[in-house]
């Protein structure tokens, strides 16, 4: 078993956060001074093949973060709630799949939630300085006091994770329990997971652990077992071990090859510069023209002509009719 993280200390000194703004590597809509020393990269590894879909992670998440989810209905499936919400940062998604090769039914259960991408689309899309930050240990966190609730992060996210609260109109998602990790604990979901399908440690440890798990799975005939750490988003700090790593989308639509949408890249990239340039150019063109051609003034003759036209004295034919 991956050894458990020792119980937390409740002594004031011991539980002082061990990372802070100083460790930011990205900050939405603003620049940060890169830290001189980088934190060890951390990761949460979700071994789907060990997961029994008990929802302890959901429960622990609600408890630790004091989230109050509404009591829903049964919709003919085990999933509840039916989707992530501003109060449900993580959600078990159940898929019944008939494996055509083995002929056996497989119940694929995936814990959905923020993947803490190395290249976070939410942060890229966010217009509000400091609403979304990324620490050098890989955690992507939302600062609600800076969030304006525009929902751009939702459009930026390749995994469809953030949700906007109807009450305070700010975006919510898994924080990877930054408050716990800051004191050397693992996230609440990982601590709870009964079968330790969720483990937590440095990203290197997690990759090594995944290898160990994949070997076991291959020995049991899952020759496509593998690690899900999608390069399209620069890798993630929440990774999956899948029995069918060749078909991630089997697991309730886990993106096969996620990356930040090209549309978002264009919108947040070239459009911004092109737009400013164009508007600037228009204004400048006006100025330049005024300087060169000068104003177009109405002359006295114009006035007279108008006057005589009005009084009918001027019978000068319309121009072009002459």
């Amino acid at each position, binding site marked *: 078993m991956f050894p458990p993280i*020792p*119980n937390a200390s409740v002594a004031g000194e011991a539980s002082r956060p061990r990372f802070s703004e100083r460790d930011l590597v990205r900050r939405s809509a603003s620049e940060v001074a890169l830290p001189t020393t980088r934190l060890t990269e951390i990761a949460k590894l979700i071994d789907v093949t060990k997961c029994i879909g008990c929802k302890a992670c959901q429960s622990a998440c609600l408890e630790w973060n004091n989230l109050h989810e509404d009591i829903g209905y049964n919709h003919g499936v085990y999933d509840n709630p039916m989707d992530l919400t501003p109060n449900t940062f993580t959600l078990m998604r159940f898929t019944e799949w008939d494996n055509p090769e083995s002929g056996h039914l497989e119940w694929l259960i995936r814990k959905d939630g923020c993947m803490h991408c190395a290249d976070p689309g939410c942060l890229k899309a966010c217009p509000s300085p400091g609403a979304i930050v990324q620490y050098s240990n890989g955690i992507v966190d939302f600062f609600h006091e800076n969030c304006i609730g525009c929902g751009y992060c939702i459009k930026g996210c390749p995994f469809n994770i953030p949700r906007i609260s109807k009450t305070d109109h700010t975006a919510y998602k898994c924080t990877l329990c930054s408050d716990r990790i800051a004191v050397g604990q693992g996230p609440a979901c990982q601590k709870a997971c009964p079968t330790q399908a969720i483990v937590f440690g440095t990203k290197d440890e997690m990759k090594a652990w995944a290898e160990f798990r994949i070997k076991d799975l291959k020995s049991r005939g899952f020759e496509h077992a593998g690690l899900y750490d999608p390069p399209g988003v620069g890798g993630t700090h929440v990774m999956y071990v899948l029995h069918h790593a060749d078909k991630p989308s089997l697991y309730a639509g886990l993106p096969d090859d996620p990356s930040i949408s090209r549309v978002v890249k264009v919108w947040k990239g070239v459009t911004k510069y092109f737009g400013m340039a164009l508007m600037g150019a228009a204004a400048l063109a006006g100025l330049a023209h005024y300087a060169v051609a000068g104003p177009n003034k109405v002359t006295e003759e114009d006035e007279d002509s108008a006057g005589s036209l009005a009084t009918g004295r001027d019978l000068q034919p319309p121009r072009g009719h002459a």
Partner: protein
Amino acid sequence: MSGISRRDFLRTSSAGIAGTTLGAFGFTEVQAAMVAAVKPFHLVNTTETRNTCTYCSVACGIIIYSKGDIRKGEHADIVHIEGDADHPTNRGTLCPKGAALRDIVKSATRLTQPMLRKPGSDKFVPVAWEVALDKIARAMKDDRDANFIAKNADGTTVNRWLTTGFLAASATTNETAYATYKVVRSTGILAFDNQARV
């Protein structure tokens, strides 16, 4: 067993099973002033108490975090419950029920005062402990005196009481169970059972 000595134990034993290097983490030390960014760890300065999950018989070790120390006679308000990483069986993990233990302790449908429902009534009304307990003792004595069977048809001493029954809890402690056992057995009640089968 005071929180302190448990803490010491937790340290020593957890050293025995060193886990991820995260404990150390290679974190940069930061000034208290700089930590505004990360939400403060909300278990700071709470009192810890070792307990056992109240649900199934895996008997997972849990740690109750409370504001106030009941052992010091203070009012202890439970703020969080989490798995005990030192427990051999659960290693700190909990199931979806165990992970939400705090909310069963704080359940909106938790009972807080004795209630009485009169025959034919459609509601419970509050009743004082003293009144209710006296009422029960009296009802028991009257029923026992009226229906106690000292000897059976063959004249054998059987000393049984069949018109009153008792269902014992499934989540009370052995000590409570034993006290219950002594009281119930001494009265001669036979319709005595627990939740072993259901």
